[in-house]
């Protein structure tokens, strides 16, 4: 009898999960390692911080730069100086947001003692790198008055306003940091300048957000996010209406599509690309002819079919970003590929392709293996590695061919194109091209859009048509299951959901 009662109670409890209309329930795939803008580096932290904080600028749904805490800005000296005018806005504890909050935040990010991984993000600011190494005490940011900030850069950068939307550049409160250290934003003492406040944070379990009444255009909404890393559990939670939306890894998409979630699956193009990198100093890929042959022997549409989603890529600047040009790049042409291989005069029997093991990477690599065998008659050995070991190898001694990806921090082509300049710490191809470097440098400071586009077109041609140190494979999409009650759900190309605009209608 007692046991039966016990189960009855359990049953009632489990059924009584009432959900309210003004609260959005969602999941994050991992616990944010830190919610201090100076220390945060990952996308989950960015998602939370982007909702509780705000930078000088922000992005609209189409990734255009729009005013954030700065209501307007002026570009001086050909993009070498910027003046940001702050709007009348307050922190969630009622204190005014001032220029000093930004200056303090930037200096804290760059302070060598902070040990901020994203410290380099502000290196374009005058003196920032020397400040970060402790050589000098001042950087090129100053308060003209309480509401006006002057930023001086090392070199002109036309897209600087897009950079100051990023989490590392958010303002910080000196009084709170001094009192609470890297936990200055944590409830209950935290003060926030974004549309939400961090109401509750159960570590590794849930995060609750609530509308910030002091925000300049306040909303009254609540958001509760659970940390759920397992996709099958997340799907069960979604199906049982515990959560309103969830992200789905692309390799699972094809399994889900057939099922019961018709009309609830959404894919959003992302500013994230996958590529095969060559070590251009190692046999056999030290010859551009061979690199071209391998590039033309991959039909990218096939990869998309295998992994279930994505946009095939021949060029490197992703769609939706300024400079995207689908007409650039080597098309799939197995006949031409064979000719090029013959022309190179080299006999290749077998090559190795390195990647870190994930279900998706494995599918990609297997498909490429098959295509190179089919189209070039070359055997491909697949070498999988654990992520960090793979990273170290790619960095210290890049293998002949490897798979990597790249994601943008802000929506400007410079983010993608600087990657392969000779001084980039992320260019593992050993490829150096002065002309390419020069074009990227010019494009960085070119205010005229059509001239800037031309520069990027030319640079992209060098990268993916002439020298081919990389083969772009595809641009990722971010995929979500979204309940029909949820409207205006758009994580944008940076995959950062802004709950400010998300509406729940039932």
């Amino acid at each position, binding site marked *: 009898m007692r046991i039966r009662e016990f189960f009855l109670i359990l049953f009632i409890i489990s059924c009584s999960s009432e959900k309210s209309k003004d609260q959005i329930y969602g999941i994050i795939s991992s616990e944010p*390692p830190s919610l201090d803008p100076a220390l945060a580096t990952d996308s989950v932290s960015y998602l939370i911080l982007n909702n509780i904080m705000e930078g000088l600028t922000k992005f609209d749904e189409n990734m255009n730069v729009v005013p954030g805490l700065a209501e307007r800005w002026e570009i001086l000296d050909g993009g070498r100086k910027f003046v940001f005018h702050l709007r009348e806005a307050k922190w969630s504890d009622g204190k005014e947001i001032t220029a000093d909050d930004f200056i303090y935040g930037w200096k804290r990010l760059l302070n060598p003692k902070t040990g901020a991984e994203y410290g380099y993000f502000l290196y374009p600011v005058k003196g920032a790198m020397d400040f970060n190494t402790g050589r000098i005490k001042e950087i090129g940011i100053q308060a003209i008055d309480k509401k006006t900030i002057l930023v001086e850069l090392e070199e002109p950068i036309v897209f600087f306003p897009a950079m100051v939307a990023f989490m590392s550049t958010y303002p910080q409160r000196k009084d709170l940091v001094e009192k609470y250290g890297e936990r200055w934003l944590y409830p209950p003492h935290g003060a926030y300048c974004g549309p939400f406040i961090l109401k509750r944070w159960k570590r590794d379990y849930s995060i609750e957000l609530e509308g910030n009444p002091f925000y300049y255009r306040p909303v009254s909404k609540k958001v509760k996010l659970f940390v759920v890393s397992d996709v*099958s559990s997340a799907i069960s939670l979604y199906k049982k209406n515990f959560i309103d939306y969830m992200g789905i890894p692309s390799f699972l998409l094809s399994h889900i599509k057939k099922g019961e979630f018709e009309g609830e699956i959404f894919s959003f193009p992302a500013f994230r690309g996958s590529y095969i990198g060559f070590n251009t100093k190692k046999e056999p890929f030290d010859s551009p002819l061979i690199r071209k042959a391998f590039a033309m022997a991959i039909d990218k549409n096939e990869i998309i079919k295998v992994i279930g989603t994505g946009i095939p890529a021949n060029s490197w600047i992703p769609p939706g970003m300024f400079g995207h040009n689908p007409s650039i790049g080597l098309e799939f042409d197995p006949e031409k590929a064979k000719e090029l291989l013959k022309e190179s005069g080299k006999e290749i029997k077998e090559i190795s392709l390195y990647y870190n093991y994930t279900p998706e990477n494995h599918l990609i690599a297997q498909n490429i293996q098959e295509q190179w065998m089919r189209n070039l008659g070359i055997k491909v050995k697949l070498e999988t590695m654990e*992520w960090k070991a793979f*990273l170290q190898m790619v960095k210290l001694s890049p293998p002949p061919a490897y798979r990597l990806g790249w994601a943008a921090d802000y929506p400007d082509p410079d983010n993608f194109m600087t990657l392969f300049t000779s001084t980039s710490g992320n260019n593992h191809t050993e490829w150096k091209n002065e002309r390419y470097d020069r074009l990227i440098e010019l494009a960085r400071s070119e205010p005229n859009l059509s001239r800037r586009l031309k520069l990027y077109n030319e640079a992209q041609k060098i990268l993916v048509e002439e020298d081919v140190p990389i083969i772009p494979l595809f641009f990722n999409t971010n995929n979500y299951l979204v309940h029909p009650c949820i409207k205006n759900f758009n994580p944008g190309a940076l995959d950062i959901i802004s709950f400010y605009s998300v509406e729940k209608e039932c």
Partner: protein
Amino acid sequence: MLKKIFAGLITLWIVLTLTFFILRWIPGGPFDEEKALPPEVKENISTLYGLNLPLHVQYIKYIKSLLKGDLGPSLKFRDLRVNNIISQALPVSARIGILAFFLSLFLGISLGLMEGTGKNFSRPVSAFFSILISFPSFGWASLLLFFFSYKTGIFPPALLETLSHYFLPVITLSIIPTAHIGMLVGTRAREEKEKGYFTFHRSLGFSEAKIYGKFLLKNVLSPVLSSIGPLFAYLITGSFIVEKIFAIPGLGKFFVTSVIDRDYTTVMGLTLLFCSILIVVNIMTEWLLRIIDPRERK
């Protein structure tokens, strides 16, 4: 007893030292990500955490802070110290683990006795154990999740909101230990039954219940006791699979993720914790055994 404690401490020190150096030998570091850090930034971080000091200096520094009870800062969760991680996650894992521990003890012993002594139950119970044990725990987790939550909705699929949320993770965690204990108890009970004292006690006029409850149980339990020490240590520190699948904020996850993240200090802290629990539990079971079974008091 003192000897045992001393031996435990030595073991702990050896494990700690080996872990420390093996960790640094694995390729890739805590701050290697897809976006490589410029050398200037890396230098700052290394200085902050003392990662650029010679390895033996780092080792000595670590031991020194360890002696003060400080496991150091986590390199992944930069606002937390390893002590914080353990103190916030261990209680959650322990709660579920202890429930699973007692459940598997109860089920294992009672089913095991049924198998070993009951005539009609023997076969089905033993088949049941084989089924339980022939499936990995993530398989059980998925099965339970599918039938009890996804299909029928009897129990919530994940998270820890109410009492009912404990049901699936506790069951999942108990399945394999139940079978292990049950099989052990079953075998021992069968052996005991064949021994002479059964008939002897019966002839003395002891009731069946008393023979089973007092003599048999006691003799069966001592081997169980010596094997449940490690089980207890394993259950209270949490399980990666159960915590991942049921979204439980426990410690088990960290045993895997901290290695993937190369969070050196956290790996060290967890290794130490697990090792110490194991040593303490082993010393305690030995002590308990001696109380129960006079033969062990040599």
